[in-house]
């Protein structure tokens, strides 16, 4: 069983990396957008492996269902889709900086002294918490993060209004 989980994890991780690389690599914007959707989809798998079922569903709905579609619409609305997806002059510096950043991240992750949760032995309190994350997350959000929820509602409304104002024909 653990072996199976390991195989799944590596497959999903490879999928995430390859899909996101394709987003950058592909010349055709439309295909790039589709690979973005694929990236989001593989991330859903990651979330399930992380026992975050609710987040997985949210990811599926919002990213794969809404944002990817929105991006594809935008790609199709801008006419120079076929001009491709060229690099600017900063390609090599950007590559260097990104690799260096990755190196520092890996170094930091490897050298940090993490205090980890105990394993999820069945019946323990921790097991109970991760047993039903959807309900538990709801409790937490509406108790501790009630104000943040309200604020994100305001944020979304203003984002919608902003988007309408920006796109509106004068």
């Amino acid at each position: 069983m653990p072996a199976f989980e390991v195989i799944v994890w590596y497959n999903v991780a490879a999928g995430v990396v390859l899909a996101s690389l394709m987003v950058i690599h592909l010349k055709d914007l439309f295909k790039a957008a589709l690979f973005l959707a694929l990236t989001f989809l593989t991330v859903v798998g990651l979330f399930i492996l992380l026992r975050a079922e609710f987040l997985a569903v949210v990811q599926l709905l919002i990213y794969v269902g809404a944002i990817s579609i929105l991006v594809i619409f935008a790609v199709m609305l801008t006419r120079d889709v076929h001009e491709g997806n060229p690099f600017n002059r900063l390609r090599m510096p950007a590559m260097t900086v990104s690799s260096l950043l990755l190196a520092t991240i890996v170094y930091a992750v490897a050298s940090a002294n993490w205090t980890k949760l105990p394993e999820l032995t069945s019946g323990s309190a921790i097991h109970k918490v991760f047993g039903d994350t959807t309900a538990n997350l709801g409790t937490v959000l509406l108790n501790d993060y009630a104000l943040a929820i309200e604020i994100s509602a305001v944020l979304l409304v203003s984002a919608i209004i902003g988007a309408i104002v920006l796109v509106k024909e004068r």
Partner: protein
Amino acid sequence: MISESAAWAIFFLPIASFLIIGLVVRPFFNRFSKISAYLAILAIGGSLVLSSYALKSVLGHEEAIGWAAHEWFSLGGGEAFTFSIGIYMDSLTAIMLVVATSVSLMVQIYSMGYMKDDAGYARYFAIMSLFTASMIGLVMARNIVQLFVFWELVGVCSYLLIGFWYQRPSAAAAAKKAFIVTRIGDFGLLLAILYFFFNQDTFAAAGLNSLEIPDIHQAAVMGLIGTVALAWLAGGIFAGAIGKSAQVPLHTWLPDAMEGPTPVSALIHAATMVAAGVFLVARFFPVFSPDPHAGMTAAMTLVALVGGITAFGAATIGLVMHDIKRVLAYSTISQLGFMMLALGVGAYDAAIFHLFTHAFFKALLFLGSGSVNHAAGTFDMRYMGGLRKHMPWTYVTFLLGSLSLAGFPFFAGWWSKDEILAHAFNQGGVGLVVYGLGIVAAFMTAFYIFRVVHLTFHGEFRGGVEKKIADASAGVVRDGAVVTITADEESKRGEHVHLGESPVTMVLPMALLAVAAVVAGFIANPPFDLGVIQAHWFSHNLVMAQEPLLHFEEKAAGIEVGLATVASIVALAGILLSYWIYQAKGISTDRIAGAFPGLYRLLYRKYYIDELYEGGLVNRVFYRGLAFFAAGFDSRFVDGIVNMFGWTSRNLGRAMAQAQTGQVQVYGLGLSAGIILIVAAFIVWG
């Protein structure tokens, strides 16, 4: 016994008068500016009464009245260093108070007439009050810092009063000169104060406060200060006195100070400004002479020689001046030289005695010259003459003052001057040198003051200001130079000379001062008991005030008859010589001048000292040397630094602006690189 609050009142009365005139009368009631004169006179009168009471209180006491000092503020924690203010009331202070307030009172009464109709009437009396108050504060000061504050305040007031008619460029220049030249001397005093300030620990170890004047006396006598340091200290204090008391080589401001109103000259010359220098040396006398038995110290020798040279040199210049006030000015310098000379040979009491008598007759002479000017319109003696008939009161009082100055037997000046000369003679050594200078100076004094009397009051009237203006317009050459008119004379253009006696407000103070000029010497220091008045009470009290610091042998207790006779003969000879030359016309002055043309020019140009300072020191050293260098330094180096900063930031900004390309991705790249650098720094050094 005077109470401390009464003593403070001596100081605060004129201060109150100054404030009321300056803040109320002048801004709001300038139409009734006469009030200011009454206010000032009332305040000074009150001060005089209280001063006399203070003098009576301190007489017969060995030490100063023991009022405690009031703490002003203190510095430091545990071993706090305290600045205090307080009154140091001994005989010296009391005598100075009486001199300052009485002369000031006379001068202010006189000013009511002299300054009549002047636009700055209220301002004049305000500053006069402040001037007197500063002098009172100076002589009463217990703390050396307190003393220095009033010392400078005296300087400021003299600046304001010499430049009273500031519209005249010459008056403004003279005021500036007086202020700057005295500042040079003040620097020495400041250094001396700094010495005390930095050596507070030494004093504190002996339980003394290095800024308290009585403590300084004690420290000097105890030998707390090394001999060499003491000599330098005395030199610094004496430098301050040289500036204020117009001793050689800083005497040049005093003759120019004649640009102020004449009563101001009287006050400056008699009781306030120049007396401050002599007072300063007297106040710190133990610093100059820590052990009275040890003879003259180096500092005292310096004081004596400077005093002697000043007394002699100024008298020689006084011989040839045409301006009556300038003659009197050089006379003042000369007499101040006598006082310094006395201090130098250790005759502390004689110096103050001479200061005392001199204050009265010199004030009188100045007031007399003002009265003469009131009639003739000029101070130039070549255009006076014969005023005896027109202004008898002025003539009589002026004559009495002259006799006193000349040292005519039994006049005030005779007593004090002979005492000085006797002390100098008895001192021996350097004392003999300065005695020689002094006796010659005394002869010249008698000569030049009677030259003034003859030229001014005797003979025929020579036209006054009208004639002088006419001569100047015609370009007449007299005594080797074209006649030029002063700003004061210029203001009288178009007026007619009206010969006549001055108003009573001017004559009354002159008459009172004349009485003092005759009897002050005898009353103050009689050689034998006069019933109520004890013999030599003045000297006794002064010397006693320094007890147990000073034990002068009473060598000159009775003026030694031989020396007194010599001095009297010398004075009489001077008077007779001037009578022979100017009255009997025994010999023409032109012939004398012609016989020694170089000497005459040297004296007439005042030894070229003004030219030396102006051309050599100020122009060459300061202006072309120092100021030129400083200007170059400022414009090249200082401005260069400032400009460099401006240039750098401008060009740096220009270069940095290139980075702002408008390409958001470039910014993002920089941002990421920055994050990496920060993380890297944490990894390496964290």
